Every structure is written in C-alpha cells, then in structure tokens.
C-alpha cells in the first residue's frame, strides 16, 4: 500500500491555521505602522503632554494642522507664567510624553526635571529621537 501523500485535507487545514494568525498579525502590524507614521515629528504629542499637566495650555488636535494656545508655546519655557509647570510637574510631563510616544521612552527619560527648559528645545529633542528611530 502506497503511503498517503502529504498534500491532503489535514495539511491544508494546518497550513490555513498557521497562515491566519500570521496574516492577521501582519495586518495589525501594518495598521500600527500606519498609525505611527501619522505621528511624524512629535510636536503634537509634546503639546498634549504639556496640556495634560496645565490647564493654561489647550490643544485642538481635531484640526489639521493642530492648533495650540498659547500659539507660541514652543517659544516659551515650561515655567513661563503662561504655561506654569514646576520642576516637580516635569516628571509627570515626561510620563505623559512616554505614554504618547512609547517608542522613544529612553530618550524621554533623559530630559531633566527642569522647568527652566524651552519647550521648543524639548520638541526638537523629541523630533530628533523619533527621526533617529526611523519613525517617519
């Protein structure tokens, strides 16, 4: 008696079972990658992380490009009276930013708990970190 060839129903079923999760995984990965590609330069995330600490700053991400109040936020320091973030609150700002940009958690942790920093410099640093990670 000849042995049954290994291209029968069971093999096809096994192949399908293997393929389905792999395909679903790759679709999900593509979706995540597409989502991350929208992140671009991290400026919106910096504004959102600041706004989560101080009610003096508001962000409207429903518009493209987003709008922020005060409109010159990046030209101000964290401890500017129009932003009013303290050194202690800086560590919470960093945690907010880490939630929004988990792919650069390492560089974000290097940011000093220094409210005397210029928000624009932090935004530049975040952008550099995102670009060097290849997140475009």
């Amino acid at each position, binding site marked *: 008696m000849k042995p049954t060839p290994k291209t029968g129903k069971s093999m096809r079923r096994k192949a399908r079972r293997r393929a389905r999760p792999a395909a679903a995984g790759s679709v999900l990965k593509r979706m995540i990658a597409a989502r991350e590609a929208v992140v671009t330069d991290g400026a919106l995330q910096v504004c959102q992380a600041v706004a989560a600490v101080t009610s003096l700053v508001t962000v409207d991400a429903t518009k493209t490009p987003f709008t922020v109040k005060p409109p010159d936020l990046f030209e101000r320091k964290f401890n500017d009276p129009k932003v009013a973030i303290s050194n202690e609150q800086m560590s919470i700002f960093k945690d907010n930013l880490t939630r929004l940009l988990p792919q650069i958690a390492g560089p974000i942790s290097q940011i000093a708990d*220094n409210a005397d920093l210029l928000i624009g410099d932090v935004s530049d640093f975040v952008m550099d970190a995102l670009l060097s990670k290849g997140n475009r």
Partner: protein
Amino acid sequence: MRLALALFAAACAALAQQPPTLKVEYVRVDPEISRIEVRFSEALEAGGVNLDEDNVTCAPDDIVITGVATVPGRSRALRLTYKGALADPAKLSLTFKKLTFLRGSAIHAAENVKAQGSESIEARRERVRRLVTQQPKPSSQKNIFASGFVTTASGGTTGGADIALNPDLGVPGLTSFVQIKKTTQEGGDPKNFEGGARYRKGISFERGLLRRLQTASTADDLSRIQNQISNSWWAGGVFDFAAKLEGMATTFDISNFVGETGFQVLTRTKALGGSRKGFWRAFVAPGAIEGGQSLRAGDTTLQKSGTPAGVALKQVDWIARYKTGLGMTLFFEDTEAAYPLRRVELDMNGVMRNLFFAEAMYNKQTKLIDRTGKGVRAYGQIDLKLYMGETAKARYGFKLSYNRGSLPPAFARVKSFQFGFLWESNDDTQQQ
C-alpha cells in the same frame, strides 16, 4: 555747537524711526522627512504672511521647495518642504522675497530675508541633547534677596541665607541637592543643612486618557478626551527616593545620615478665575518615611559627663520619622495694570514630622545641644513676593517671608518674619 547738537538730535531721531528688521535666528534641516524649518527673530503675521512657494528661492538648485506653511506652536517660524537630495545642510541657502511680521501690534514688511543652513545634523542633535538634559537652576540661585533681614516676633534684625543647588549627576531621574536654611538671628534660624542625592519618578494620572487619545479616530472622540483631561484636577504623583546627610548648619554638632522615601500628589496648574492672568497649583504629600542613623549628637564632653542630659544624648542612635506635608503656589500678573503692583507670587508650604526615636535637639535657652526629644515637629513657611516694576533684564519688588516651627536635625524652634528688597533676573519668563 548748535549744529553739532542738531546733527546729533537728527541722528537719534533717524535711529528711533528706523523700521524693525526681521532676522533669521536658526535654520533646522531634516533631510529624513525633506523638511526645513526657518526660525525668525519676530513673530510672523498670522494669516497674512506670504506662504507661496514662489516667495522663496533656494540653493543648491537640485532641491525644489514644494510647500511653505506656518508651524503649530511657533509664531516665529516657517516650515518648508522640498523635493530632491540635500546632502549638506550647511550648503543650504534660502531667500524670502517678502515677509510680513509683527512688532507689538504693528505689521512690518521685510524684503530679501536670507537664511543659511549652518550646523550639521549630528552637531545639532548633540547641542539639543545637552540643552534638554541640563539640571534645574532653582529660583533661589537667580535671586538677590538684597538687604534681606530677619525680624523675629520679638524684634531685632540680622542677615539671612536660603541656598539650594542642584548639580547634575548625569543619570536620568537622579539629581544631587544641597540645601541650607540659615540665618544669624536666634529664633529665626532653622540651622538646617541637607545634602545628598535624589531619584524622582513621576506617574501620570492621565495615562488611560492619553492612551485613548492616541487611538481616537474621530474628531468627536478627540475633543471628548481632550475635555476630560482639561477638566481633571490631579496631574499625577511623584515618588522620591533620597539619601542625604543632615547637618546642623553650620557647625555640624548634630549630623545624621538619612534615607527617605515618599510620595506626593500634584494638581494640574489651574487658571486663576476666568482670566489667564494667574494660576494656582498645589501638592499633598500624604506620607514619607525618613530612617537612618545619628552620626553626631552634640558635644562628646557633655555625653561623657554622666549628667541625665549627657546620658540621653549618648543614647541617641537610630532615626525613624514619618513625614507629611502640603503646599500651594499662587501667581498673578497684570503687566498692563494701572496700579503699581504688577505681579504677585505666594508660596505656602507646611511639613509635619513624627519622630519615633529620641533625637538630639538644640536648646534655645542654653544655646547648646543639651536635650533630646521625640514626637511631632512641624514647620511652615509662607513666602510672598510683590513685584512693583520690571526692566528688560530684571524685575524688582519686595519679599515677605514668615517661618514657624522646627526642621531637622537641630529642631531649633523658629518664629520669624523676613522682609527684603528683591531684584530678580527675569530669564524664567523671557522668550527665547
């Protein structure tokens, strides 16, 4: 003589009437995303500035500008997108034919504004990294608490010092600190010195909402989550772990090595009333533990004297304390106010310690370390800064400070009122 004076006056008038110029401060080039950001010295006219690609000419010729736009969050910048390969950002040269900008509320125009790329990408990244990793310069380092004097409740004045330094240790989250609270007035001198290293970790209370903000797909979702965040009161919590040397400033007759761990909850910064002229923020530290060992508990001669005080001091060994506290900052500024009071800063902080073991303490009556004590020890401080005027470089006014209670390690009782003239550099609010 008259002619010379007239010429001088004419020159001054011409200088005064000279229109403001628009300068390029920085050009940031990101070849990875084919983007150039040009940052100017003045705010550009929002909505009125020419964003036409034909308004910009660039070199080298092998790149083509494909778009010009304003930059969210930057009033003094324009963002350009380009096509083509830009190998060396230093060789980039841009010319804006005409740009309109603001000086105060007046609109001015500048023609042929030239921008030149100068920095390599690696150099820029290193410069920015150095900028954002530098440790804080506390406000006490910037202040000159000029003519500062201390007045105790019973009278008398003398000089005072309140110094805090935070040198960089180069490890994320880890900072070193040195704090001295010292005056020469008996009854107004907390004799407090603390120096050590602190690791700090912040935990946001908005983690869930921020995660949802990332995945929100519709405008409605985004605005709902943004509103939820802006309506919340608490920003997050901060964990502190510190190892420090406490000393009786400045003789170190009492010194302890202490480890500290604590947690504090911080509010978001909230606007003061409906206006954006002021804000308040607060923190509550529900619990912290300080534990360690006494290194020195007063004079050894007294310890060996065999008197009850000496025996008690000799027995001082372990340190165990529970600490709780709260604080609030209130700020108001009205630069256009008709009255002379332009800016008010109020800081209120209180801390309470419960000492589980007896510790060496300073005796105000004998002016010696000849007693021990345990139990509750509290300290409160209220600082009020009233600014009367401001120049381009500094602001000036008065500082009033009220301190009451006692601080480790000497637990010298303080009840004092400080008053001084204040001259403070205003680089904390100057826009860059």
